[in-house]
């Protein structure tokens, strides 16, 4: 590791309207080394990686390859310099096969494609580095882990020497993460340089030879494996010890109230590449948070849709507070106190072109309609919005601006205010903290807890196992549309009557064999 770096970035600066994403950033990438980049959301890590790959052109700064300055204007250039990137939203063509996706990126693809030869090369690389993937499979059938392996194979066959991965572990179960780190080890052995944006600190501690910490667009520090301790990293990331995340604070001693939602053997047919649902049994009570763990795409969306009434159940019964709600349309479900907090409020719950006030009115147009629908009582809308925002303790700049002009966090707050203003009995929350910075994420979790305390039942769908373990009274695991495990989230190693440990959830999420444990 005393060899000169393969790739150096000096003084990289990149800004977007309203935000300085990278501020004179320096970075060294060495061959045969695993380099982790950490920082909270919005620190500028993703932007830096995209500059390295040629997707963004920096406003200032230079990139040197083996000491010589190079120009990275487009991803094409990056590939020429043998720099490859595995994206978070992967750039794959789902309808084509693994081999075809790889072929697309091969620099030496002949005019007439030799399918078997490409398949052979894929298999060879797979075996060498532990990246099992089937060349003939259409990509839409692959799991997240397999898609990731496809991406890495693609880069290796395209002669990449530097591999950049943007939060590769976000959607992986614990044992899959171990597998990925083993792949990194194999690559390091052969002299490749691996740069990855880490999601959790313990990943960094597990496999990185070097760590760079970013905070608000600048490099807060760069540590070697020996220097990198959790305390050191935390202090670089936040400048102070991190605030305690919201804890469950269980409602002990409350009598079991009648369930607010019951799903009995609910099934939904699979559509296109989706998972569908098969014989789901689920009960949610007031004052209770039920967490749903699982890799995205295993039926979470269908579960939310069927509860909301967007998707009809082919079989099974759905009850809301005892009443048979199986055939109720969305409007009726909402009128009965079911609300929906989407993973991306801006695209799934808010209509960007309408004003904040109009979006508020949309929450219940019937309530605010006057004169048989020919007019709308905007005063009532206004007062309801103000009241709800005040209860949440937030304020927004202006209610007459199009909601699309607000920041993502503000949009989330408005939607939260709107939904909670209805005093819901059941909240379906999808990945509520994804993409939020730490402060907003903590605030969102607190909102859910407060709603639960006020009597709502909450269905929390999340990929973040830590979050699920911190907030849920009960946990179920969703795999391919079925509930494959349920229980009380328990600390590691314990198995107190019906408890689920983190590792067990990880195995259940991915359908891997459970290992024996005590």
């Amino acid at each position, binding site marked *: 590791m005393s060899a000169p770096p393969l790739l150096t970035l000096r003084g990289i600066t990149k800004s977007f309207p309203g935000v300085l994403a990278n501020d004179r950033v320096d970075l060294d990438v060495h061959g045969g080394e695993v380099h982790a980049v950490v920082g909270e959301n919005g620190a500028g890590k993703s932007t830096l990686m995209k500059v390295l790959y040629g997707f963004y052109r920096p406003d200032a700064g230079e990139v040197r390859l083996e000491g010589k300055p190079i120009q990275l204007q487009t991803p094409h250039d990056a590939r020429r310099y043998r720099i490859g990137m595995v994206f978070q939203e992967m*750039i794959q*063509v789902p*309808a*084509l096969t693994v081999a075809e996706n790889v*072929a*697309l*990126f091969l620099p030496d693809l002949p005019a007439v*494609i030799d399918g078997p030869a490409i398949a052979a090369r894929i298999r060879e690389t797979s075996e060498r580095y532990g990246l099992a993937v089937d060349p003939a499979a259409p990509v839409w059938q692959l799991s997240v882990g397999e898609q990731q392996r496809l991406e890495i194979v693609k880069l290796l066959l395209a002669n990449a020497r530097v591999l950049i991965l943007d939060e590769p572990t976000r959607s992986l179960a614990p044992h899959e993460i171990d597998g990925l780190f083993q792949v990194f080890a194999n690559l390091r052995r052969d002299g490749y340089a691996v740069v990855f944006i880490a999601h959790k600190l313990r990943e960094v501690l597990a496999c990185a030879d070097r760590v760079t910490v970013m905070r608000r667009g600048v490099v807060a520090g760069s540590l070697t494996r020996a220097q990198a301790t959790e305390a050191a990293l935390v202090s670089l990331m936040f400048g102070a010890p991190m605030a305690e995340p919201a804890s469950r604070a269980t409602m002990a001693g409350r009598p079991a109230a009648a369930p607010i939602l019951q799903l009995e053997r609910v099934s939904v047919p699979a559509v296109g590449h989706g998972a569908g649902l098969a014989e789901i049994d689920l009960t949610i009570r007031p004052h209770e948070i039920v967490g749903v763990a699982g890799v995205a795409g295993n039926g979470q969306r269908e579960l939310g849709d069927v509860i909301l009434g967007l998707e009809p159940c082919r079989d099974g019964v759905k009850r809301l507070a005892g009443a048979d709600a199986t055939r109720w349309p969305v409007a009726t479900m909402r009128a009965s106190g079911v609300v929906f907090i989407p993973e991306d409020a801006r695209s799934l719950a808010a209509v960007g072109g309408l004003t904040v006030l109009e979006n508020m009115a949309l929450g219940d147009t019937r309530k605010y309609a006057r004169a048989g629908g020919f007019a709308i009582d905007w005063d009532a809308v206004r007062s309801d919005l103000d009241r709800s925002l005040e209860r949440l303790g937030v304020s927004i700049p202006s209610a007459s601006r199009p909601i699309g002009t607000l920041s993502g966090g503000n949009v989330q707050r408005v939607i939260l205010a709107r939904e909670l203003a209805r005093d819901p009995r059941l909240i379906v929350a999808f990945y509520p903290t994804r993409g939020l910075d730490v402060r907003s994420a903590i605030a969102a979790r607190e909102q859910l807890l407060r709603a639960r305390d006020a009597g709502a039942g909450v269905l929390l769908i999340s990929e973040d196992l830590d979050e699920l373990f911190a907030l849920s009274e009960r946990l179920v695991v969703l795999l391919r549309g079925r509930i494959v495990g349920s229980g009380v989230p328990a600390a590691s190693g314990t198995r107190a009557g019906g408890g689920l440990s983190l590792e067990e959830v990880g195995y259940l999420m991915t359908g891997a064999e459970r290992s024996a444990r005590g």
Partner: protein
Amino acid sequence: MIAGIVRSLLSGSIVSGTPLLYATLAELLSERAGVVNLGLEGVMLVGAVVGFIATVHTGSAAVGLVAAGLAGGVFNLIFAFVVVRRRANQLAAGLTLMFCGVGLSALMGARYVGSQIAGLPELRVPILADLPIVGPALFAHDVLVYAAVPVAALTWWVLFRTRWGLFVRAVGENPVAAFAAGKNPHVVQYQVLFVAGVLGGIAGAHLSLAVARTWAEWMTAGRGFIAVALVIFSTWHPLRAVAGALLFGGAISLQLQLQALGVPLSPFLLDMLPYVLSLAVLAVWGGRARHAAPGSLGRVFQGTP
């Protein structure tokens, strides 16, 4: 008598189905690259009129065919520019192309309305054409008919076995991925749209040089739109398009046969058959077919920006 009807029906299906097949392949290629061209009708008309005029003036149908193909390709490039470079709405641009084609072909063909020509010669396959019933039905056609299925097979091969075809499909499924792979989606779309224009021009030329052997305003009568429906019906697969074109060629031929036989059904009601059939087929199969559509087409048909 029955033999004669069967022979006429079979022959008619093939003859009517041929321009449909070329047109469907044109639209299929276009949509595989992520572009919907409702103006195919206009392209066919331009090909038909140019092919006709060229044949009249040079006396050679071969020259006419080449001219028709080139004219169709160039005409489609106008659409390509507006849609690819200027990112205009594909449906509106397509309809505009249709109007342009209708008007342009009417203007160019004004002098030639109704004139008859020999057009494409019939090529009889030596021994096979003498087989009873099947012979004249299958083996006594012009060169475009014989070339139709091979062209469909070639289209399949190019799309699924060559590098360029892979680029085309990638651009149609996920242009960002294609871009990330270093291919410029715009260049690929221009290339595809030119080829599609050539095929569309040839489809039109078959109408004016072989099927009708004359020129009349708007002689395509909506075949360009039927082709768009056929592409969906064949789930964007060139070989299935052959079956579809044959089926619809049969519908067109059937109503001509029924008229010739003096069946006392209004010709107008019979004329409806291809359109109603297209609609019925789509109503039954369409929902399923949508999942087979190239990825970036969804935006166009949902009308989302």
